[in-house]
């Protein structure tokens, strides 16, 4: 993941092929079998040197759009981002460093959210600031109760 090889050749075909090789018929199924695992780690499992995290993100979004489950996808992105940035859960002590880590996780979440959902994510972040989750909170998947109240499904 350091050589920039992920962008050589037909990376979409490569991504699909790796998913099929591992016995899944969709990237979503592959990811669901690995809940709360950061996207970079999913990418690493699919191709240590030639798949990038953002490609997995992009593939998951494409599939979510087809299934009309984008809101769920957006929640899933936060779960995976939090497990990367705050592996021990929501900080118990809010010092400068942990405040920055929270800010980084939420900032990256916004950046990875498709335009259609940016406003809703911004509102969800405001709600999180107003009522912070309990210390140690560590959502294990997109169906986490607190997450679903923050960002409920609309498509259904």
């Amino acid at each position: 993941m350091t050589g920039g090889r992920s962008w050589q050749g037909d990376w979409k075909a490569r991504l699909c092929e790796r998913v099929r090789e591992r016995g899944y018929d969709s990237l979503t199924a592959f990811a669901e079998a690995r809940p709360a695992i950061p996207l970079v780690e999913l990418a690493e499992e699919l191709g240590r040197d030639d798949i990038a995290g953002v490609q997995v993100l992009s593939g998951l979004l494409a599939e979510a759009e087809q299934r009309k489950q984008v809101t769920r996808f957006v929640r899933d992105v936060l779960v995976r981002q939090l497990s990367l940035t705050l592996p021990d859960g929501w900080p118990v002590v809010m010092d400068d460093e942990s405040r920055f880590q929270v800010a980084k996780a939420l900032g990256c979440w916004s950046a990875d959210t498709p335009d259609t959902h940016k406003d809703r994510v911004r509102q969800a972040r405001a709600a999180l600031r107003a009522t912070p989750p309990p210390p140690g909170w560590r959502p294990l998947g997109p169906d986490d109760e607190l997450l679903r109240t923050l960002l409920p499904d609309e498509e259904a």
Partner: protein
Amino acid sequence: MKVVALLLLSAALLAAGCSSRAAGSREDATGAGPDRVKGTAGGPRQIAARTRRAVVQVADEVRGATGEHARSLSALAARPPGLGNRGLSGGNGAFTRFIDHGSRQSRWIDGALGGVSTLTGVASETTEADMQWALLRMTGPRLQAAMLGALLLATWVDFLQLADAVLRQCPAYSVERLFVELRRVQGRMEPTLTALASLDAERVEAAATAMPELMGQLTREFGSIQEGARVAMERREQLLTAMQFMEMLTLVSALKMSLPRLPPAAPASLGVGLVMGSGGVMVGSRVVVSAEWVEAMRRLVQAGVISVPVVSAAVRIHGGQVLMAQASGDLPPGVRDALGDGPEVRAMHETGRAGAGMSEAPRHHVLPREHREWFEQRGFTGAMDIDQFCVRLEAAQHQAIHGGGNWRLGRTWPGEWNRMIMEALREAEAEAGRKLTRNNILNIVAERMKFYDVPMSFTPGRRR
């Protein structure tokens, strides 16, 4: 002429340029063989810490040497002219320009070393190991340029000391001739100095590779002025005998002896090679660079901070092997190994710098130029200017990142990267409720670069 026949460097240069005075580096210098540096000992963070200490050690040594040269220049400027208004400070100020030339070199070297300090400082506060490495590698061109610039500065100071001595002690030597000679020497050095002062990795390396040959030319120039002075003295049957005069010249206390002595009539024997000994790199029984220096270099070469051609050039210059026509410019295998050279290092150097035609690939700002001011307000200035943080990406990579088809990637390089990174940074800042620090920004950028699989290897780009 037999007295000057020895191919010798004085200890003065070695003390200034190569030996390690940093007692603190001793402990890690002794314990670390090549295997340890390659990663069996300690995590990437410890290796990065050792690399950082090596950078600091080398920078400190160069700083010490340039400081000394700067003092020599001031002393030359301040020394009142001798009889007949002769001396560098005399002659109606005609020679002042040469002293100024030296001072200008010492200024850019200081600037380059300042950049090294900034980068190592930021690296020491960076938690992301990859970013720490990338920052340390950014010191490379500066450190290499400063090292070689200091060698040339030492040489220039030697020329000035020689000129001052000739002017004062050798009234038969024409002032005009000496002026012309100094101007010619300055002209010979000029292209190399300009390349070094550019701090551009590729120009610095090209200049380094050509430097042993330049030092050879300068050695001949130096010898020719000395010889000219001797002949002039003989003709005029001056008070001193020619031989005494030559001895006096070599005893000028400030002379750095940066240049090897001209060999006797027979060309320097290739048999007198450089070998790796217990004390360092040696010519015969003489240590030309210390074991500590070699150890620091090995670490820096293996970390990709400085390149093998540059270190080889420095060793050849220190070893006085600038008059030998070594076609390849290569050092003997034993010395190369000690300096950390090897197929892996070469391969890393290639991929890091120019691998697979990457040196031709266009450069892209990782920190978007449109937001220069935003970054400046958060400490990205000087050696940390956003222009220093560019990456090379192949055109093919662009097109791939542009995506298309029925997967709307929604991310295109560079436009979408810019949009994404600025959004992540601004939203994080809003969330934190305070300005992000420079390290905060580097931390987020490092994470995002990994996410996009953008190689963490920075090269300076152009300001527009």
